[in-house]
């Protein structure tokens, strides 16, 4: 007897995001539509510098701080094996030395958290929250796939509602697959405002600092 629904289970594993693709984004579109012409925003971008993104963001009155976090950490051999316990707070104070008066309005963390260990991510956010005010918005993309390229992809803003994802790496590594519950625990001071699943298996989150 053939049971109802006995066909082979559909492979629910998302494809690793190791190719270029346009990603329609709902959360970012909402965010950009809220930006006003009569005030100035301080935006922190944790990705690599991109002329396309700078050109897009230049339509808003803003100060853009570019901090290629993965590159910065890699340049200090941060991802190499650490023998002794690491004082992450001191590390981030050294690597991300923003003036105490700095307050970011928007933080862009695209494909950043996927490459940080749990403790590193926790301490990064503890450092970052000092430079946020109540209402700072954090937009992040986090992979739901089991494997991800061995280095972060780059995102280019095509328009308000579309991002171009680029990653030329063909080598894969296991992904941490942070869930929403994980992120709530690790991103102290932030709460999840909304989240959406993108076509490429990435999940985009809007966090708001409390």
């Amino acid at each position, binding site marked *: 007897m053939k049971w109802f629904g006995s066909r082979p289970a559909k492979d629910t594993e998302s494809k690793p995001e190791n190719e270029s693709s346009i990603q*329609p984004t709902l959360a970012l579109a909402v965010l950009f539509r809220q930006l006003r012409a009569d005030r*100035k925003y301080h935006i922190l971008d944790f990705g690599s510098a991109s002329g396309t993104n700078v050109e897009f963001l230049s339509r808003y009155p803003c100060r853009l701080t570019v901090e290629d976090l993965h590159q910065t950490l890699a340049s200090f051999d941060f991802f190499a094996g650490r023998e002794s316990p690491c004082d992450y707070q001191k590390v981030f104070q050294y690597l991300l030395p923003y003036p105490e008066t700095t307050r970011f309005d928007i933080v862009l963390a695209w494909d950043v958290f996927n490459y940080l260990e749990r403790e590193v991510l926790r301490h990064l956010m503890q450092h970052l929250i000092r430079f946020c005010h109540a209402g700072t918005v954090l937009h992040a993309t986090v992979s739901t796939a089991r494997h991800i390229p061995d280095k972060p992809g780059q995102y280019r803003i095509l328009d308000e509602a579309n991002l171009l994802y680029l990653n030329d790496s063909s080598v894969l590594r296991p992904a941490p697959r942070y869930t929403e519950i994980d992120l709530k625990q690790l991103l102290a001071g932030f709460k999840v*405002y909304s989240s959406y699943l993108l076509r490429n298996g990435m999940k985009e989150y809007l966090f708001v600092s409390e």
Partner: protein
Amino acid sequence: MWKKNEVGYPQPEPPVTAPQQQHSNPVEQLRERAIIGSSITVKGEIAGDEDLMVQGQVEGRIELRQHNVTVGKNGRVKADIFGKIISIEGEVRGNVFGEEKIVIRSTGVLHGNITAPRVTLEDGSKFKGSIDMDAKEQEKPAKVSEPKVAVADTLKPAVALAERGVEDSKKLKFDTTATRA
């Protein structure tokens, strides 16, 4: 018809100068430009009345607000730079102030802050720092008062509208396959 060269017009001797970078723009070729060669190291302040090409090393300050400054591929600058159009092909550590434009070429590396009405980052360039993109504020010294409204304060109604599909679909090309988690 006779040609100018054949009737013996005196031809000026080509000036002996250090080799310069080829420019496609003939106006750029004619401009006077000082060159700091690749074996030269300068410590201190550089000011003057002509464009500057840096192929060597400079530490201190470069102040040529009315002129163009180019840091060549071999150039290593540890200084704040003030210029009209500033083009970075080498490495700069310092803040950069462009009256008109700042360009970081594909080979360029800049660790510092940028202030300019127009900024171009070519693919492959490396930049760490801040870009002040409020050109209006630079033109008007008076600071625009900022309303005390956080971005997040306006998110709730916007998200609700977007999810109900009330948003103008012509303006917002939402992915209809996106699902609310």
